[in-house]
C-alpha cells in the first residue's frame, strides 16, 4: 500500500508566483473599497502563506483544511450579503476562490486558473464603477496579467523585461479590436441585462423623506450629482434651484412625499415668462426615479420621463447609468394660481398635538402680520433677527423637533429651517410644502460647465398664495445668505480659510479637484456617454444609412474578422520562416535523387563521400554537384548556381 504523503513544494514556482500574486492583488484593488475587510485580509494571508510554502519548500495544506476554509469563505460571503448573486457577493466569491486556489497551486495549470480569476476580477470592477482612471487601470491590469502569464509559461530564461515587453505587445495587438468593438457594438437604450448593482451600499443623493431630527451625512459628500452645460447664459446663484421632489406629508417628525407618480399629471397650470434657459444635463446615476431640473422646467428631451402633480420630473426607469439630455427652464413662472379648497386643505395638514409652541407662535405672528404675504416676511425676519445659526452638526431634537429647534437649539441646516418654516405656514393656515433638490452649483472654468454635488442638496419651502400660485421661499437664505449666494462649497472654503489662516492650500486642492473633474466630464462625455443616440450619429457620420443593430453587428463582425486577418497576416509576415535559398532547393532535389537523407550535422562534403558508396550516380557527378552547391550557397558565387543547375540536369 502506498502512503499518501503531502507533496512538498519544490520551489519551481518561485520565479512566477510573485507575478501571479501581483496580478491578482492588482485585480482585487478596485474591489477592496466595497468588499468586507476580512476578504482582503484573507487574500493577503493566503498569498503570504503560499509564498512561504514556496520559499521554505513546505507542504501545501491538506485537503480537509482547504475544504473547511472554502466552506467558511462561502458561508462568510453568504452571511455578509445574504445572497450569492450580484456584483458584491460575486466579486467576494471570486476573491475567496483566488485566495484558496493559491493554497492548492502546485503547477502551471493552477496558475492559469488564478490568472483567469484575475481577469474576471478586473472585468467585474467595471461593473462597479467606470471612472476616468478605469481605462489606464484596465490596461495596466491586463499588461500585468499577461506578464505574469508569460513569466509562468514562457522560457524560464526569459528576462522580466522581455516578458513585460511581450505582454505589452499582446495587449497592444488587442487595442484595434477593442476600439472597433467599442464603436460598433450596438448600444441599446434599455439596460441589456439587469446587473444587480450593490444594493447594500445604498442609494446616493436625496431620499424621498426628510427628518430634520437626524443628522444628515448627505451634505458632506463631494460626489458629483450632475453636471450642466448652459447654452448661452448661466443663471445667477440665487436662481440655481434644482427641483427634484416635493414633500407634503408631515407627521410631526418626518416630511414625506408620495412614491414617484409615473404618470403624466394632466391640466397642470403653468405660466412661464422671461428668457428661457437651455442647457444640457449630464446626470450621474442615482438609482432613483426623480430627475432634478432647474426651476421651472418646461421641456426635456429624455424619454419615459414625465412631470408629476407637484412639478417634479420622474423617469419610469431608475437612473442607473449616466445619461445626458437637454432641458429648457424658465426662471420666471407661475404655477397653480388656483387651488380648490380640498387641495388647499391637503397642504395645511399637520399633527396638531405635536409642536404646540410652534402653533401658538405661528398664530400670534399671523395675527400681528395680517396678510399671508406679510406673515411670510415676518417669519423670515424672525429667523434672521433671532439668534438662529446655520450648522452642519446640529443637536438631536427629540419628540417635538420643531418646538425644540425654534425655541431651544436654534442650530440647524436647510432641512431644519425648511421644516420649521413650512410648519409655521401651515399652522397659520397658509398652504405650504417642502421642496427637495439642489441649490447652487459651481462653474468649472476649465470645462465651461457647472458641477452640482451631493453636498449641494438643499431643502426649501413653497408657499401658496391665491392668484400668485406657489412661491419659492428659502428660509435658509434668511439665516445664512452666503449659503445661497456662494453655494455650499465656497461657504465651506471660507470657513477653511479662516481656520487655516490662509486660503492657499485648500484653494490649490480645489483647483486640482476642478481640473480632475473637467477631465472626468470630458471622459464621461466622450467615452461613457457613448450611448445609443451618439452611436447612431457616429454611424451616420461614418456613412451608414439608417443605422440599426443588425447593420452595426454586421459591420462589427466584418471589421473584427478583417482586423484579425490583417494582424495575423502581419504577424505571419514578421515571423515568416526564412525563404529557402535557391541553391538549397536544388541541393534538396539532388539529395532526393541520390536516395539517402543527409544526417543531422552532416556536411555536404561528408554526405558526398557517403553517397558515392551507395548511390548509382557517378562519384564525379556527385562531387561536382556538391562543389557547385558549396560554392553557390556558401561561396557567394553567382556563376556556381548555373553550374549547380547544369550538373543537376546532367544527373537526370
Amino acid at each position: 500500500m502506498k502512503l499518501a504523503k503531502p507533496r512538498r513544494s519544490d520551489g519551481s514556482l518561485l520565479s512566477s508566483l510573485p507575478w501571479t500574486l501581483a496580478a491578482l492583488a492588482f485585480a482585487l484593488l478596485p474591489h477592496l473599497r466595497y468588499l468586507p475587510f476580512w476578504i482582503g485580509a484573507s487574500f493577503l494571508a493566503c498569498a503570504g502563506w503560499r509564498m512561504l510554502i514556496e520559499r521554505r519548500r513546505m507542504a501545501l495544506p491538506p485537503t480537509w483544511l482547504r475544504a473547511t476554509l472554502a466552506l467558511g469563505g462561502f458561508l462568510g460571503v453568504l452571511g455578509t450579503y445574504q445572497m450569492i448573486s450580484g456584483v458584491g457577493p460575486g466579486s467576494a466569491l471570486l476573491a475567496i476562490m483566488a485566495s484558496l486556489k493559491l493554497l492548492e497551486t502546485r503547477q502551471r495549470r493552477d496558475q492559469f486558473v488564478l490568472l483567469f480569476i484575475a481577469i474576471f476580477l478586473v472585468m467585474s470592477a467595471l461593473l462597479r464603477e467606470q471612472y476616468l482612471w478605469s481605462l489606464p487601470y484596465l490596461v495596466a491590469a491586463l499588461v500585468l496579467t499577461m506578464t505574469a502569464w508569460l513569466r509562468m509559461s514562457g522560457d524560464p530564461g526569459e528576462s522580466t523585461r522581455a516578458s513585460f515587453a511581450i505582454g505589452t505587445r499582446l495587449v497592444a495587438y488587442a487595442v484595434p479590436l477593442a476600439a472597433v468593438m467599442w464603436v460598433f457594438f450596438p448600444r441599446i437604450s434599455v439596460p441589456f441585462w439587469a446587473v444587480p448593482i450593490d444594493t447594500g451600499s445604498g442609494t446616493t443623493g436625496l431620499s424621498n423623506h426628510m427628518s430634520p431630527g437626524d443628522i444628515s451625512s448627505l451634505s458632506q459628500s463631494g460626489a458629483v450629482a450632475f453636471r450642466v452645460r448652459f447654452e448661452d447664459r448661466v443663471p445667477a446663484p440665487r436662481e440655481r434651484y434644482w427641483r427634484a421632489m416635493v414633500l407634503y406629508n408631515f407627521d410631526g417628525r418626518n416630511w414625506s412625499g408620495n412614491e414617484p407618480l409615473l404618470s403624466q399629471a394632466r391640466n397642470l397650470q403653468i405660466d412661464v415668462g422671461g428668457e428661457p434657459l437651455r442647457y444640457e444635463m449630464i446626470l450621474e446615476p442615482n438609482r432613483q426615479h426623480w430627475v432634478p431640473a432647474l426651476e421651472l422646467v418646461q421641456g426635456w428631451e429624455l424619454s419615459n420621463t414625465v412631470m408629476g402633480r407637484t412639478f417634479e420630473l420622474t423617469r419610469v426607469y431608475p437612473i442607473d447609468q449616466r445619461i445626458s439630455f437637454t432641458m429648457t427652464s424658465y426662471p420666471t413662472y407661475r404655477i397653480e394660481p388656483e387651488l380648490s379648497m380640498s387641495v388647499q386643505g391637503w397642504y395645511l395638514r399637520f399633527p396638531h398635538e405635536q409642536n404646540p409652541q410652534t402653533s401658538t407662535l405661528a398664530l400670534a405672528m399671523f395675527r400681528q402680520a395680517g396678510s399671508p404675504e406679510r406673515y411670510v416676511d415676518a417669519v423670515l425676519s424672525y429667523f434672521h433677527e433671532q439668534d438662529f445659526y446655520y450648522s452642519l452638526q446640529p443637536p438631536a431634537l427629540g419628540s417635538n423637533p420643531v418646538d425644540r429647534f425654534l425655541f431651544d437649539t436654534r442650530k440647524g441646516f436647510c432641512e431644519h429651517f425648511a421644516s420649521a418654516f413650512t410648519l409655521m405656514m401651515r399652522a397659520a393656515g397658509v398652504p405650504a410644502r417642502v421642496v427637495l433638490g439642489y441649490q447652487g452649483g459651481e462653474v468649472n472654468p476649465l470645462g465651461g460647465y457647472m458641477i452640482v454635488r451631493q453636498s449641494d442638496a438643499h431643502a426649501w419651502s413653497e408657499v401658496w398664495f391665491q392668484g400668485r400660485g406657489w412661491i419659492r421661499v428659502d428660509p435658509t437664505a434668511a439665516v445664512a445668505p452666503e449659503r445661497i449666494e456662494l453655494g455650499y462649497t465656497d461657504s465651506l472654503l471660507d470657513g477653511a480659510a479662516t481656520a487655516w489662516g490662509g486660503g492657499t492650500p485648500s484653494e490649490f486642492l480645489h483647483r486640482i479637484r476642478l481640473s480632475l473633474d473637467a477631465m472626468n466630464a470630458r471622459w464621461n462625455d466622450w467615452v461613457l456617454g457613448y450611448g445609443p443616440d451618439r452611436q447612431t450619429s457616429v454611424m451616420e457620420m461614418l456613412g451608414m444609412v439608417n443605422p440599426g443593430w443588425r447593420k452595426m453587428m454586421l459591420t462589427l463582425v466584418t471589421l473584427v474578422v478583417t482586423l484579425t486577418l490583417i494582424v495575423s497576416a502581419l504577424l505571419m509576415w514578421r515571423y515568416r520562416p526564412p525563404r529557402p535559398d535557391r541553391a538549397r532547393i536544388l541541393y534538396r532535389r539532388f539529395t532526393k535523387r541520390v536516395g539517402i537523407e543527409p544526417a543531422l550535422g552532416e556536411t555536404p562534403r561528408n554526405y558526398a563521400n557517403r553517397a558515392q558508396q551507395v548511390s548509382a550516380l557517378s562519384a564525379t557527378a556527385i562531387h561536382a554537384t556538391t562543389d557547385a552547391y558549396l560554392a553557390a550557397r556558401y561561396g557567394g558565387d553567382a556563376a556556381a548556381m548555373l553550374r549547380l543547375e547544369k550538373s543537376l540536369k546532367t544527373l537526370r
Partner: protein
Amino acid sequence: MSTEAVTQQATLDAAVQQLGNIVLGKQAQIELALACLLARGHLLIEDLPGLGKTILAQSLARVLDLSFSRIQFTSDLLPADIVGVSVFNKGSGEFEFQPGPVFAQLVLADEVNRATPKAQSALLEAMEEQQVSVDGKTRTLPEPFFVVATQNPADQIGTFPLPESQMDRFLMRLELGYPNAADEREIITGDDRRTMLTEMNAVTSPATLLELQRAARRVHMSDAIVDYIQALVRQTRESAEIEVGLSPRGAQALALAARALAFLRKHPGVFPDDVQAVFPPVAGHRLKPASAANRRKPNELCQHVLDSVAIP
C-alpha cells in the same frame, strides 16, 4: 584569382607541405595550427610529452621565418624570466632593459601548466595586450606575435591548470595524439627531427604573413554560415551536457578560425566543413561540461554538438 592570391596560396601550400615533412601524419593538426596563426590567434597544444609538440612549434617558426624563442615553464619561473628585467650598467651608469624571451615573433611556452599562476599570467597578459610593462614602461612586442603554448594534460602531478578565463585567450587548443604505425616507423628509422628542422627553408616572410592574415579576414561568409555558427553556439548553451556554453567572444573566435581555415583550404567562402573542422579546437577548451557528463572529453562533447545541429 589574382596573381597575388595565387602566390599567397602557393606560399601556404608550400608551408603545409614542409610542415608535413617534419611532423608526420598530423595533416589536420598542421592545417589547424596554420589557420590559428592566420587568424592571429594563440595556440595551445595539449598532449603527453614526446608527441611532437615542440617540433611543431619550432617548425612553424622556421617555415614562416619568425624569430623564435622558447620558455621552459617550471615551477620556479618568475615573471621577469619571461618579460625581461632592467639591469644596472656600470659603464653608462644607467639601467638597461634586458628584453626577456617573450620579445620574439613566435614564443614557445613549453609546459605552460608547470609554472605558477603568477608566471602564467605574465605570459597571458602579454598575449592579450601584445605589450608588456616593465618598471612602469610599456614595451610593444614584435609584430606578428604568436604564442604557442604546450601543456601536459591537467591530471598529471605537479601542474597548475590554467583557469578557464585564461584558456579563453587561446584561439585553439589542439591535441596531437600518437602517430600511426607507418609514421612512427619513419620517425624511428628516419633522420633526426632536430637536424631536419635546421635544414628547413622559410617559405614566407613576416611581412607576407601579415598580408595573408589580412586576406584571411576577408573570406566570404554567407548568412547561412552565420546562422550555422549561431545555431552551434546556441546548442552549446542549451545542451544538458554542457554547464557553460560558448560566449559571444567564443562565437567570434569560431568565425575567425573558420575564415582562416577556409582561406587556407582555398574555399571561395566559409564552408560548413571549415566550421566543423575548427569547432572542436576552438570550442573544446571554452566549454564547461556539466558534472554528470564529466567523464566525457571536450572533443566528444563538441562532436555531439555538431551531430545535433542541422546545417542551414
